[in-house]
């Protein structure tokens, strides 16, 4: 007990000394209640590089930066970081310092909500990019909504995310109930008679798979099997079931890392049909894992909103820049995170312009996002509807043309669809 007490006293004294030595560099001196940086004088001409420091704007990201899902989560942060570095120019010229505040939500709702509260308590944060998991996004966005902080999601496809109709919650990805339908329509147009549906038991994978199944049944396609699995390596039992029913197509609702292993194992055991998946398949690593399995037999197709270079030239440049900076190809949702950040920056800029170069409030930023018209991103052109979905999204069905991961960018668009989200 005594030692504990000594320890404690030392700790307290040390921390007091630390606190006395000075606040953290970005600690806003004003309490949370005051409007941020109102004391900054307005510059006359916003176009001129202003010398006056008008305050710091922070844009937070929340995604899993550690744990099993971190390969996707880190690249959401990296995509956003790249956008911030490339596109913050106009705001810097107006005299703001723009900073990224990356948070690790650990793919855990508890951590996500706690972080959300920390984020909203920081008055310098004007916009948020996140999350990866709908299970974290839904409870965390309650906090963003309460605090009026705008959030742009690069990855949450669960319809419930926007169906609550919050002003602050937006997403630039398609909804499950659209993407699954796109997949089923395409399968039908291929003349597929039977399909075996597998999903990864996550909100994303299962969501897409459920809607694929629903639409496929409506179109008269036989659903030979509907299975969920958390397995990452050993798909032997599932492959046995697939081979027994020998469907024309296997649809996998989930992410490429699982899908690649499944596709490879299914081909090795002699399955000859077509593979299909949602935008979680869009990674060259899929070709690295599955190799020949993607082009032999019926080949492999995936649906995505993020179009190839021929449609969106920005994508190619993004991939190049991303690789130069982070040393690896971007994972799925990294390009969306780039766009989400770009939308945040543009909205803050618009809101600041409308105020004559002053620091905008959170509410003004949230409204500015909804006011954007045909924002040209690298993965699409964005206008938000009144619940925060993109009004009309272009969906591409893309066919893998080569087993070589280096040629992933050459994959061929086989179908383009314009679909508006279901209105509430």
């Amino acid at each position, binding site marked *: 007990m005594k030692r*504990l007490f000594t320890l404690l*006293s030392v700790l307290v004294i040390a921390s007091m000394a630390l606190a006395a030595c000075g606040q953290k560099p970005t600690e806003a001196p004003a309490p949370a209640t005051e409007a941020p940086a109102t004391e900054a004088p307005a510059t006359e001409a916003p176009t001129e590089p202003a010398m006056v420091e008008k305050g710091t704007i922070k844009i937070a990201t929340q995604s899993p930066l550690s744990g099993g899902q971190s390969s996707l989560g*880190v690249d959401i942060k990296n995509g956003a970081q790249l956008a911030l570095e490339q596109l913050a120019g106009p705001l810097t010229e107006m005299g703001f310092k723009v900073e990224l*505040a990356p948070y690790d939500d650990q793919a855990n*709702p508890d951590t996500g909500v706690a972080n959300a509260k920390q984020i909203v308590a920081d008055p310098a944060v004007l916009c948020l990019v996140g999350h990866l998991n709908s299970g974290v996004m839904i409870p965390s966005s309650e906090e963003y909504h*309460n605090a009026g902080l705008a959030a742009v999601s690069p990855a949450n496809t669960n319809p419930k995310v926007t169906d609550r109709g919050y002003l602050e919650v937006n997403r630039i990805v398609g909804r499950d109930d659209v993407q699954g339908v796109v997949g089923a329509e395409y399968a039908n147009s291929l003349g597929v008679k039977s399909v075996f549906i597998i999903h990864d*038991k996550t909100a994303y994978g299962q969501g897409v798979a459920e809607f694929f199944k629903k639409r496929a049944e409506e179109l008269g396609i036989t659903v030979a099997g509907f299975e969920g699995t958390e397995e990452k390596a050993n798909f032997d039992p599932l492959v046995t079931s697939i081979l027994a029913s020998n469907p024309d197509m296997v649809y996998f609702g989930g992410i490429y890392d699982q899908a690649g292993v499944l596709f490879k194992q299914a081909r090795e055991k002699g399955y000859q049909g077509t593979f299909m998946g949602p935008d979680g398949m869009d990674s060259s690593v899929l070709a690295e894992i599955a190799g020949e399995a993607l082009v032999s037999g019926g080949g492999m197709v995936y649906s995505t909103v993020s179009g190839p270079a021929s449609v969106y030239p920005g994508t190619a440049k993004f991939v190049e820049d991303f690789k130069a900076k982070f040393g690896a190809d971007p994972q799925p949702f990294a390009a969306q995170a780039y766009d989400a950040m770009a939308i945040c920056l543009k909205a803050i800029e618009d809101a600041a312009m409308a105020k004559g170069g002053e620091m905008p409030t959170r509410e003004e930023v949230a409204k500015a996002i909804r006011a954007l018209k045909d924002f040209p991103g690298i993965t699409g052109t964005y206008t938000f509807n009144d619940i925060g979905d993109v009004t009309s999204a272009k969906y591409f069905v893309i066919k893998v043309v080569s087993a070589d991961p280096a040629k992933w960018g050459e994959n061929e668009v086989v179908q383009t669809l314009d679909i508006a989200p279901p209105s509430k």
Partner: protein
Amino acid sequence: MKTLGTFSQEMLRRIQSGYMPYLVSILHALVGIYLVYTSPRSNIAFLIFISSLLTLYTVKTSAAYKVTAGVLLAVVVMPILGVRNIFYLEILFQICVFAALALGLNIVVGFAGLLDLGYVAFYAVGAYLWAFFGSQQYYVIPYAPGTQPADLPFLLPGDMFYLFLMLAVIIAAVTGILLGLPVLRLRGDYLAIVTLGFGEVIRVLANNLDKPWNITNGPQGITPIQRPTLPPAVVDLFNNTLGPVIGHPVKASDVYNVLFYLMALLIILVIILVARRLDDSKIGRAWTAIREDETAAIAMGIPLVRMKLAAFAAGASFAGAMGVMFAASRTFVSPESFSFMQSIGVLTMVILGGIGSIPGVILGAAVVVLLNLQVLQGLSLYLSQLRQSDAVIPIINFAWKNLSTQLDPAKYQRLLFGIILILMMIFRPAGLIPAARRQRELAVEESGD
């Protein structure tokens, strides 16, 4: 060195005698409050403030003073500071939730010596109980996840929450007994693996019971879940009385946070009381006997089956109640919250704090939650700010900007957490506040029990 040692001991003795303890604890609390009040987003200020409770616990003062000061800090000061920065309130709430879970697990692991690696299963039972009855899920049963129509009615009114708080205690206890019954013959690590399996079973069920009937909505989770109603008068009252101190109008959602925090505090209080009484009772002594030597315990005529079941039931019931609270406070549950790692996390709190020791376990929960949500997160944010600034490490003249993108500190919180766990275990293997059974026995004799 020796003189320094004697000097510090002398200082300690002085601090722990006369009126000094009162002064020290009050001073610490006041400094903490002042710092948090003036810089509401400083992590260090908050840590100083929250550690004042620990000082209060450590100093030698009268029990009445400790209780009064503790209640004052926890029930009055914390909500005010918390509403000024709801992040603190969330941390406090999570500390309470995990402290309650850790206290429950402490009964099973610490008192009765039964290693339970699937403890969050009971937490999940409570959470899903209210999630099902307190949401629209009953009407969603015929639909596949995500395909249900909008605007379904709620099954029960939100105020049934209080009833389910009680119900969850019973249902979780029954679940605990159901698990306990078949596995009572198992010892040590066999029991551990069975509880681990049970924890996984519950999580997988939550993840998969969306077909053939959609009971849990699978991985999509259940939302919205209702909260008990909050009369607008309470919010007004809150604003009118505390408005000037807080400095901005308080919204209903913030008052909810305060409400859940206070409720969690109350539950913890109940748990502490029950746990202490249990530990001091015949049952508690039976548990100790089982823990120390099962064979000898049977030989002494201790009803092994009943005692083990009691431990399981008692531990589970607390987790069930906390689960209901969790579901209501989040208005959302999904299987992700009940993973194996969560069970391990709670176990870590128990052992880190001091297995079998009630204050230790609470401290363990506080330390782990603070580390996880505040300290490590704050550190990584601080470092990432440095990376975006022009700061330079002085002696080696290394600009933070040039740090490789792969060494991003935000990504490696768990690495630090791992090192901290190992070091803590090596240097304080008995926990932060080890269980002092002997000391407590003496205290019991004095109080004339």
